[in-house]
């Protein structure tokens, strides 16, 4: 039952968005193109299109989030959908209700889409394989597994700045081990045909066998950034110090913090990205974050367009042709 790609329907169209792994390049490009068409909506005086009117979306966030939650909500509202937000930490699962029971209850309320964030890898797959057939699931981050919309908005941002993916060298720096964002980015970049994807970090933060995903591993920042077109910094979570993964924030910043000096190894027109939230002075220097090369805020605004694109492709099929 888990063997086939449950993300696609019989016609090969997107039914759920759970991970970017296994999706065709054409489909990713279609999402990016659709997102492009929605950027104009954001600029209009009336920032709404009626694509998802009458649909009910549920934001099911089992983990705290600010940006992802708000951009999903914003995207849904701009598509004229009704949005429910369930704050799970205060709801029934903490009273012992199982995840599945909760889903059944929500299904009974005739929702059309679940946008799920959960702390366990595979949660989105689990939910998608157990919901009623008319419901779509979008993964807004599950454990260390995937965060597909984040990766898509990163691709969208890269494409806006660099045009073609083919000739690029992209370096992803930091805590690859615990990062769902990095995994989705790697799948997206390799699918879109990026020439070289690098991961940079100390061995404690780079998972074993990561090469099998099609990336090159660097433990030295200078070599890792050499001639890079795109530098993606990942957030370093403070609790990593407790797991003996790193000696100190200070030393991490010295070796892997992105400073103007280290950025000099990359191409002069390299862009700097970060999924946020930023720890200034831990993984990135303030000057870099605020520099002209930084596209961090742009990522956030692109997030709305990309999420609108995904939602409309998953739910708004009749209008899909017009949007794309």
């Amino acid at each position, binding site marked *: 039952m888990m063997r086939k790609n449950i993300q696609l329907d019989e016609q090969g169209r997107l039914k759920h968005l759970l991970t970017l792994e296994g999706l065709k390049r054409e489909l990713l490009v279609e999402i990016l193109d659709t997102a492009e068409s929605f950027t104009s909506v954001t600029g209009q005086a009336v920032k709404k299109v009626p694509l998802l009117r009458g649909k009910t979306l549920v934001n099911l966030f089992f983990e705290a989030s600010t940006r992802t939650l708000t951009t999903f909500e914003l995207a849904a509202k701009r598509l004229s959908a009704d949005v429910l937000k369930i704050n799970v930490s205060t709801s029934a699962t903490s009273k012992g209700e199982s995840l599945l029971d909760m889903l059944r209850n929500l299904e009974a309320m005739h929702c059309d889409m679940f946008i799920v964030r959960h702390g366990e890898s595979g949660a989105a797959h689990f939910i998608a394989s157990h919901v009623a057939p008319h419901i779509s699931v979008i993964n807004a981050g599950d454990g260390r597994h995937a965060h597909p919309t984040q990766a898509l908005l990163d691709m969208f941002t890269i494409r806006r700045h660099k045009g073609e993916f083919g000739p690029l060298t992209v370096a992803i720096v930091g805590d690859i081990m615990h990062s769902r964002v990095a*995994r989705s980015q790697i799948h997206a970049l390799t699918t879109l045909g990026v020439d070289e994807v690098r991961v940079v970090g100390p061995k404690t933060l780079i998972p074993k*066998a990561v090469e099998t995903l099609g990336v090159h591993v660097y433990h030295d920042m200078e070599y890792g950034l050499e001639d890079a077109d795109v530098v993606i910094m990942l957030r370093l979570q403070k609790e990593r110090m407790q797991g003996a993964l790193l000696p100190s924030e200070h030393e991490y910043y010295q070796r892997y913090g992105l400073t103007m000096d280290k950025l000099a190894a990359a191409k002069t027109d390299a862009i700097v990205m970060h999924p946020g939230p930023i720890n200034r002075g831990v993984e990135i220097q303030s000057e870099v974050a605020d520099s002209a090369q930084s596209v961090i805020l742009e990522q956030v605004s692109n997030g709305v367009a990309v999420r609108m694109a995904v939602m409309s492709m998953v739910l708004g099929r009749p209008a899909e042709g017009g949007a794309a």
Partner: protein
Amino acid sequence: MRIIIEGGRVIDPANDIDKVQDIYIAEGKILARGRKPQDFQADRVIDANGLVVCPGLVDMRARLREPGQENKATIASETKAAAKAGVTTLCCPPDTDPVIDTPAVVELIHRRAGEAGHANVVTLGALTHRLRGEQLAEMCALKQAGCVGVSNALQPVDLKILRRAMEYAASQDLTVYLHPEDPALSQQGCAHEGTVSVRLGLPGIPETAETVAVAQALQLIDLTGVNAHFCQVSSDAAARMIARAQYDGAPITVDVTAHHLFLTEMDIGYFNAQCHVRPPLRTQRDRDGLREALVNGTISAICSDHQPHDTDAKLAPFPATEPGISAIETLLPLALRLVDDGLLSLPDALSRVTFFPANILEISAGTLDVGANADICVFHPHYSWRYEESHIVSAGKNTPFLGWNLKGLVTHTLLNGRIVHEVDDDTLHEVITQGAYEAELAQSNSIAQGQPLDDDIEAEDSNEEDEDWFEPPSVTDIDSPRPPQTDREARPAEDTDAGAFVPPSAQTTATKSKQKKQAAKKTAAAAVENTNVLDSNAFDSNASDANALGNSGGDHQVSTQIDAPREPQTDSPIEPAAAKSPAMAANDANDTYKPPISPFRVPSKQFAPLSDRVIKTQPEDDNRAAADPNSKRVPAVKDDD
């Protein structure tokens, strides 16, 4: 009740028997085999024509969930599943609730099992009080209450306590059952640390969690001299470390779960929680290494590690699901699949789920000795069916094998001479007719593939059919994996009168004793020669040294009638590995130890035979014999030095 099991192909690996024979059962014991005792009046005749009759299976590790988790399963429900699967004895690890650390719990389990009456249950006692790893459990009291060994199950024990526990267990003559997993390295992992865990973002359990624990345990075993058993080794590296220790004479035995011989991390696919097990499914390379270790005897037993769960246990995101497979009902079918895969002969495969586990547990089971308890499994080796949830008797329906085509349907299970499971007549009829058809199909396939059918051989065989049935060797007589039996006499079409049969046993026995005598003189070169003979498929070889091989060749060809391997071509070169091992083991007795050639190469005595033919990665520079899986209980070959 007096029962005759008539006309079945009797395979009793403990006694080197593989022939069509009748079995006479009275008062719960096996009264006789072959010749009908005088005045025997049967109350019930089981017609086993076309079926295999073997000792009831012994499952080294099955969780029954009672006491403590009766919502998942009970002793009654799981022993019933065992009976249906041909398992007559199973061993319950101590991690029940309450823990098996007092005689009262042991007695409770034995009593419940006795009341249910579907299968024998033996228990392992706790190594430490409440498995907390702080204070030794009352091992002696547990032993007196009937525990066959002690274990801390999956709970961690630090080295100081483990050392003391081993020392104490050694002095009480108790075997310690170890689950090698270093908790600091495995942490919260739920999948093998490798390509799949990195792809799916699952917290990984590195291979080193196992190898580190094995390395430490090996040192402590050496220090304390305790008899130890490694449960469900999951990595190639660990198997090799243990093989080397066995070579050095350490009193260690090993088992592997059936699922680790068939599944890999890849089977997790997109978060298939049915493949969430502990230790985790590892790589293809590990799976092949475990198979290799099984064939060469490093790993002597296959267990199910049966863990029934309620459905909710698997209904969650992968890391939040509970590990384990409801596996007891697939134990025999998967063991038989190893025969189809060309790894083991049918008798050898059966020995890994009957005689060897019984031997490790030091219980009198797993044989068809005259006088032994009549714990018997009758099954059809060819009938295949698609495994569906509706087939599962166990309360736990959690298995990744649903949808697989399985072979080895158990038609009758006898426990202490009582029929505890039998299929209804319609099913039996279908099994026999359909199974015969499938057997024929397999046979014609093998003919189509150019395998000559060696019918002549059987005609020529002399007959001293009863040679071994009246001299049942005791367990300790058995010195090594037995040579594959000839299946010649096991022709279903033949009359069941054993006398009419060609005595496979004659030749086998002769071969065996000959091997024993000649082995000392044989050089490694002879082994090489044997290997070559095998590899060239020269079944017609009449060289005396190749006697055993000729046998196995005959086994292969003739056996197609009952036991047609699906892929005879892979089958033939591999199978003889087991055939050779007795000779090789004997060889070793007269061989002085030579250090391994490279520190990273396993003592090649363990691996050369198989790797030469299957893995084909190791040079043929050392052809010393295969390990003796039995080295622990039997006066080890080493000791003869």
